[in-house]
């Protein structure tokens, strides 16, 4: 297992800068997730770590040894590809054994390692099958097995679950994490699915346009997004992001939109003082908007009247699409609530969890 250090790495394709001045340190045994929309540079970065793409500038280290210009075969890295990349003309056994044969490991030892890995992944019965005789989940397990047998320093995952159906994705996610916990391997996992990122990573790096937007634990990123992009990207449904104007009312700050006014909690006032009479972006997660004031009307909850545009019952919760003063947002409420389309009701925003973003820079104010 190994530490990985990416030091000010930039990658250009002609004039296009796919990765810009990217720096990151990954500790031994960490499972970090690179997440972002398509074209944000996450796969390019992963491929540079693997040696499959050249680096325009910057350096990459694995276990303190610089590998920036070292060929892929010498980096001792294993990669699980999005479309599996199994060798079509070799059966499962040969796919798993290929890397070991290249290292001239004795046949008996190869057999033992392959069998152990196959049993770990539950593919022991398929060793004689060709890849085109396997299902998507089985292929992905073989791809995983091919990485595991080599016992590499670093595991790389390039959106390995994106070709699987939703149910299989859930079970494979658990399997990958289970294997990570057993082997304690250093892993870099790339995905565009924020749900995958939140459930899998010990640390998440959110990227946009080749630049790190935020680097932190799933909880940190969810509760304290660094900017508007992160706030809108993480969470399902995404955080409600609405333009409000900060006004002063008797020494207290309020966020206003038309005649809708939401009180800013005292602890958030100081950074917002310099934004009085200016537009900011107010972020509220759906679960922080409810149709009840709670026990005794908690402090920080501001009420407003809203029109119900759509009700989405999901079984364990309901998603209510609301409109108030031309602002549209989504609330997550109790499944037992009887709200229907066309209702105009009082809703409560828990401003203790509100995030404020600068309208121009989109950076978080508080």
């Amino acid at each position, binding site marked *: 297992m190994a530490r990985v250090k990416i030091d000010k790495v930039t990658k250009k394709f002609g004039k296009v800068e796919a990765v810009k001045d990217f720096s990151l340190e990954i500790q031994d045994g960490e499972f970090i997730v690179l997440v972002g929309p398509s074209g944000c540079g996450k796969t390019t970065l992963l491929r540079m770590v*693997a*040696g*499959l793409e050249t680096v325009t500038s910057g350096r990459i280290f694995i276990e303190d040894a610089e590998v920036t210009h070292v*060929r*892929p*075969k010498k980096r001792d*890295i*294993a*990669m699980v*590809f*999005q*479309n599996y*990349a*199994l*060798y*079509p*003309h070799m059966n499962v056994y040969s796919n798993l054994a*290929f*890397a070991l044969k*290249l*290292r001239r490991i004795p046949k008996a030892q190869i057999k033992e390692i392959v069998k152990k890995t196959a049993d770990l992944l539950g593919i022991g019965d398929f060793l004689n099958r060709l890849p085109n005789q396997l299902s998507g989940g089985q292929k992905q397990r073989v791809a995983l097995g*091919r990485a595991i047998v*080599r016992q590499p320093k670093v595991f790389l995952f390039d959106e390995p679950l994106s070709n699987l159906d939703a149910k299989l994705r859930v079970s494979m996610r658990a399997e990958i994490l289970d294997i990570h916990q057993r082997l304690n391997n250093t892993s870099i996992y790339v995905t565009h699915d924020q749900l995958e990122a939140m459930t899998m990573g010990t640390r998440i790096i959110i990227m946009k346009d080749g630049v790190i937007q935020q680097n932190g634990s799933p909880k940190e990123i969810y509760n304290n997004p660094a900017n508007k992009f992160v706030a809108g990207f993480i969470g399902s449904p995404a955080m409600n992001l609405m333009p409000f104007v900060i006004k002063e009312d008797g020494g207290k700050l309020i966020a206003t939109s038309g005649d809708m006014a939401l009180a800013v909690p005292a602890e958030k006032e100081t950074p917002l003082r310099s934004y009085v009479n200016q537009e900011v972006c107010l972020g509220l997660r759906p679960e922080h908007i409810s149709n009840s004031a709670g026990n005794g009307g908690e402090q920080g909850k501001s009420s407003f009247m809203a029109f119900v545009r759509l009700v989405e019952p999901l079984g364990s919760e309901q998603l209510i699409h609301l409109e108030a003063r031309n602002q549209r947002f989504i609330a997550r409420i109790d499944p037992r609530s009887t709200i229907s389309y066309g209702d105009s009701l009082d809703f409560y925003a828990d401003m203790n969890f509100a995030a404020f973003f600068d309208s121009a820079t989109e950076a978080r104010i508080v």
Partner: protein
Amino acid sequence: MRQYQTIRTISRLLFYAILLFIVGVFFFPFLWVIYTSLQSPITAGAVPPDLLATPTLDNFRQVFEQGQFFRCLLNSTVVVLLTLVANLIISLPAAYVIARNRQNWMMFLVLFLQMAPWICLLLPWYIIFKKLGLYDTYFGLVLSNLTFMIPFTVWLMLGFFEDVPVEVEEAAWLDGCSHMGTFIRIVVPLVKGGIITISTLGFMFCWNIFLFPLVLSGYETKTLPVFVYGFLADNQLDFGPLAAAALLAMAPVIVFVLLNQKYFRQGIAFGGGK
């Protein structure tokens, strides 16, 4: 319903009749060669043909007694095999590199080489080969064959190589395989169909090529098509031995194609689709 079935049956019969006619048109000359090779000198060129004449193997005996048949058979075999091997060694890596680094000018060059009229090369080559001592040598004949084979092979194999996913190669590199190792162990097995197709087509082409061996080969390296031509004497036309020699010359190609027809059909369809 009955009327529909009748129309369907008639259509089907008509279809097969047309198909048989077309096959017959293409197959007839071959059947005629077989017939003629089994006829005596009297019945061989008879008009109308005597279909009830007793077949004879005299023509084949004459071909073997002529003395050069086996020598020419060996020459053809050596030249074809050397051409096929050299062609694969040169063309496969070339096609692979062009497929992976697709540049329009490379494709244009490959097509241009195929469009050039080969006969223009005949006289210059004769002069050059004579001066270089390549006249009447296997090397010379193989070289002349490769000039046609290489562009054709590269053009046909491009589609096959493009269909090999790059990720499969990348996986091999990460597994510890060198570029050459990846090409040999991973890529080449995946284009096996194309290789068999090109080998079959190459075998047919090189085996049957006549004009260049006629000019560039001599007594030592005479190939079978040139040997068959020898039966067209100045003042006599022996149809029987000529047909027998032609049939013997055709036989290896027919066997080879029949053995590889599955890959041949796949490869042609695939190459045509690209």
